[in-house]
């Protein structure tokens, strides 16, 4: 446990210092308690012998002052350590995540990672001090007391020593069961919460069906299930929970009975008996207190695993001697097959070529592999077989930064950083002049948007860019592509309807991108206009290329492209009537 946490931290100095200090203080505390033995021996004689007790009292006073000074001085260090440890781990995780392939970043994983960096680390780091410290004390102090006891009576010391491993085992078992039960309860709890929310959202439907207040059978089942699980969990946890206290208590009874036995059979003196019993109380209290940290230790264990998961994701493989330049922006797929972690191949045997100065439109029904093609070019994932080449070089042999330096991706749902429009553009080229910015804005038809906004370039776009409309965000991201002078532009055209003004602006901007003779543009196309203006169309179906050609060639063949083209056109002329 301690080892697991210790391994988690990239810099271990601070953690090591704090934990060793805690352990040293616990040893010192144990020894100071041990001084009670000679002190009580002296003072518990029929006539208290103060002279004999004095040296021990002095030693105790000195030790006590030393302990308290260390203890008190370490307070701010310890309290501050939680935050410092969190900072260390957070920096480390952020650096680590930068090395991961883009394909790793699914919505769930992104959310999970953000949770790990913030709340998981934020809870774990203070726990290593607040719970880790007492847990260390809870073991070291009883051990020290046991050692002192050995000096007085080895038989009783053996009993104490025997209690320790049993207690630790019981604690472990209890922790394991609590962990299992918590997972079980979390599942049931999520189920109930999910049902309740669903229940709220589905009210119109449920009320129409007369299930408004009863919640339907599944809701009641979820509640019953949760209730049943809670009771079962309780039954499972109760005994292991008590067994720890039981072992500690058994230790108490055994020591007490034996000590009295030894006393009455004359093998232990009365003062020693009293002194040992006082010590044993400290031993048991310290050990018994561990149960209060059991849940904290369990939480640490769980949180550490969560951090560990992120740390163990393999980074994107690097070529031994990566190619550091791309000559031409040719894109070539040869016989590419790729499958996601689970499931059927997303692409199989895909081959095509896109030349600089041309625009290629990808079409196909949803799930046909269009997005996967774009992801493989930017090396979100590596192909299973075949190869993806940019400028004639396999993307796996290219330096990843060089590859990404050539590519601009214009997504359907563009993400903008929560800062000004200018800053969001400068991300593409920090040293761009104002003239560069203006030119890019003009080419992307962003200038109209800027003119309309009172703060122009200095307009803040809000979290995720949501102060701007979808079309406006796309124009920002196209402007970024211009500013970056990316030679490969990958566009995932907005599928849902943009408002008419934005739609024509975005169309113009994409067309302008394609005018550069050095640039290769690939568009996942959803609009008839984009489809007809492409130089080349690649139609995909179920991960295979089914048609390749110019739009004019393919429109009348009756194939996939023709079907989709007409479908798009029909959708645009549909009207509702009774």
């Amino acid at each position, binding site marked *: 446990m301690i080892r697991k946490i210790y391994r988690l931290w990239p810099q271990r100095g601070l953690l090591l210092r704090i934990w060793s200090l805690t352990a040293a203080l616990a040893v010192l505390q144990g020894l*100071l308690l041990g001084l009670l033995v000679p002190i009580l021996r002296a003072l518990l004689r029929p006539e208290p012998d103060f002279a004999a007790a004095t040296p021990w009292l002095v030693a105790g006073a000195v030790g006590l002052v030393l302990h*308290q000074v260390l203890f008190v001085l370490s307070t701010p260090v310890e309290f501050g350590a939680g*935050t410092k440890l969190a*900072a260390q781990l957070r*920096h480390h995780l*952020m650096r680590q*995540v930068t090395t991961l392939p883009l394909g790793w*970043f699914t919505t769930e994983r992104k959310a999970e990672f*953000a949770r790990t960096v*913030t709340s998981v680390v*934020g809870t774990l780091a*203070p726990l290593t001090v*607040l719970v880790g410290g007492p847990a260390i004390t809870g073991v070291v102090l009883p051990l020290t007391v046991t050692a002192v006891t050995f000096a007085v009576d080895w038989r009783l010391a053996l009993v104490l020593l025997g209690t320790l491993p049993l207690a630790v085992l019981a604690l472990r078992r209890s922790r394991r069961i609590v962990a299992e039960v918590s997972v079980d309860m979390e599942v049931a*709890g999520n189920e109930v*919460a*999910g049902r*309740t929310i669903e229940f*709220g959202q589905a009210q*119109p*439907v449920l*009320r129409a*069906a007369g299930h408004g*207040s009863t919640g339907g059978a599944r809701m009641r089942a979820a509640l019953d299930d949760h209730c049943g699980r*809670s*009771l079962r969990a*309780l039954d499972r946890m*109760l005994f292991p929970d*008590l067994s720890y206290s039981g072992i500690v*208590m058994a230790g*108490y009874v055994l020591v*007490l*009975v034996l000590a009295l036995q030894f006393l009455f059979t004359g093998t232990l003196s009365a003062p020693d*008996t*009293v002194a040992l019993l*006082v010590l044993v*109380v*400290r031993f048991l*209290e310290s050990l018994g*207190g561990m149960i*209060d940290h059991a849940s904290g230790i369990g939480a640490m264990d769980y949180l550490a695993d969560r951090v560990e998961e992120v740390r163990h994701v393999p980074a994107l493989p690097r070529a031994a001697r990566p190619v550091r330049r791309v000559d031409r922006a040719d894109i070539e797929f040869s016989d590419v097959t790729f499958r996601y972690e689970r499931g059927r191949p997303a692409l199989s045997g895909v081959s095509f070529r896109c030349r600089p100065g041309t625009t290629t439109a990808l079409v196909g029904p*949803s*799930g046909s592999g269009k997005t996967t093609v774009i992801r493989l070019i930017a090396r979100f994932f590596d192909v299973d077989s075949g190869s993806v080449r940019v400028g004639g070089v396999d993307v796996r042999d290219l330096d990843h*930064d060089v590859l*990404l330096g050539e590519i601009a991706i214009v997504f359907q749902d563009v*993400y*903008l*950083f929560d800062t000004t429009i200018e*800053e969001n553009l400068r*991300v*593409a080229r920090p040293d761009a002049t104002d003239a560069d910015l203006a030119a890019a804005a003009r080419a992307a038809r962003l200038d109209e948007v800027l003119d309309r906004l009172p703060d122009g370039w200095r307009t803040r776009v809000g979290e*995720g860019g949501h102060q701007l409309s979808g079309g406006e965000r796309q124009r920002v991201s196209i402007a970024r592509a211009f500013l970056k002078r990316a030679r490969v532009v990958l566009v995932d055209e907005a*599928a*849902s309807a943009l408002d*008419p*003004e934005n739609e024509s602006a975005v169309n113009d901007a994409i067309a302008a991108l394609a005018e550069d003779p050095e640039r290769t543009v690939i568009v996942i196309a959803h609009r008839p206009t984009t489809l007809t203006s492409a130089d080349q169309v690649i139609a995909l179906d179920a991960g295979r290329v089914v048609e390749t050609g110019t739009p004019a060639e393919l429109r009348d063949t009756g194939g996939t492209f023709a079907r989709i083209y007409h479908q798009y056109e029909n*959708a*645009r002329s549909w*009207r*509702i009537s*009774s």
Partner: protein
Amino acid sequence: MTTNTARADVSPTVDDQRKQSPDEEVPQLIGIGATARLLRPVWPHLIACATFSAVAAAAGAVPFVAIAEISRVLVTEGTEAASATVWAWAGAGAACAWLRLLLLGLSTHVGHKADTQLVRHLRLRIVRHLGVVPLGWFRAVGSGRVKKAVNEDLEAMHELVAHAVGGLVGAVTSILVGVGYLVSVDWRMALVTLAVPALGVLSYRWGMRSLSAQIPRLLAAESQISAASVEYVDGISVVKTFGGGGGGRVLDRFADAVREHVAAHNAWLAGVRASSMLNRALGSELTVLAVVLAAGLGFVGAGWLRFPDVLPFLVVGIGLPTSFGPVLHGAHGVRMARVAAGSIERLLAQEPLPEPANPRRPTGHRVELDRVTFSYDGVSNAVEEISAVCEPGTVTAIVGPSGAGKSTLASLVPRFYDVTGGAIRIGGVDVRQMSSATLLSSMSLVFQDVVLLRDTVRENIRIGRPDATHEEVLQAAKAAQVHDVIERLPHGYDTMLGTGESGLSGGEQQRLTIARAILSGAPIVILDEATASLDPDSEAAVQQALTELVAGRTVLVIAHRLHTITAADQILVLDRGRLVETGTHQELLARNGLYARMWRAQRNGDNA
């Protein structure tokens, strides 16, 4: 002395503070009454739990008292003379040790059982209540509020019932028993011994007070860290494709946030340095040991006390500080539960939608809007004085710029809210005079945001008509263009939705809700932007499904894209909550008003 939840370290943590700072919306003192009311169903259990816990704590003190007494008797009376007393105490100690364990188990058991019952009871109450509040309330507060009530608030109640009550009562009892015993030995020594943990609690309070000033800064820094890390991973593809520049900037912001967090924490520490050091020193058992020994020797020297009488303080007194942790901890749990209880009560106090005493049934399904006025806030009207008649078998389109009140108007028909002026009648009956079930079963609502239940495909389709046969479900699915999709699912019509197994696209889910509407056969259909966010691949199929759905019914449709409603029987043009034009497409074009302007703007876009 050891109690069930002793926490040796009573140092303040930021976390404690945060949890203590009340919800913005909740004044802190509210909630005592609410807590008592909510707990009523489990009072007997709680009393039993507290009693067991108290007796357990008292029994738990005996083993320590036994050791103290044994020590005292041995020294004062000599080994031989004390033998009987000593064994008696040993027996009592051992017996009470086991008794404590037994009672602790009972207390935990009763507490958790009460907790399980209470949570179930409260959830049922919440669920029952959700079934009667106005539908609009869900839209206004969002599911987040409901989620908070069923998760976090109930979790706080769980803490209270299952842990805090027993823990608090136990800790207080063990302090009282311990102090009582020590006072019986020597009240002056007891006073001195008790002074140490008492000062500790005071210093804790002092530290807590001075720290609240730093909380906003710490929380701000934490949310900055969170925002920066979310931003970084959300924008990771931008960060990566745009090279070091962009990524660097976001990483810098993250680093700044982390630095600020450490700085804020240090600032807080600087503020509580003295109090936390003092608190730690006072909470240490060595401090009590030193005080007891020094005072004890002093008292012995002064002749007030014999040395053996110091022993109880060494055995029982040293353990006292550890009992103060659980007291603070339990008090904290009670405070949290109070806040949560207030929040749950407010949810339950939400006014239910008035149901008519003598519900009437509509004759026919003509929808009549009669000078309909509605205001969300009671100050400005979202829709005002709107009158129109939707005849059965016709399509009425509602159009207008965003914010014109289109969705508000449509949501008044199913009584998401009640009108604040005028009336809405269906088949001649005011919607407020119909029962919710009658009203809602007379209409199908198809909105942009699809609501599917985590149930099988079949149950999702026939939720409005649970008695529908498989054949009827099949027909509806076919009409909604979704039958083929369902057949391809791993378990066909028995596939569970919402478990990640189905993987239906947005358009397919939308068609499933249309199949539901088709099967229900409700004579009135309300469509709100049903196709606005679909990808073009599904759009055509959804459109076909809609064509099937609306045939022959009273249809109210809200549309952005005007070409979809050019064939409507009447178009209501709304602007800022008022009805500005009514007519067919041709009539409105000829009129050359707002509709004609909107139409021209969209044509330009389409032709681009």
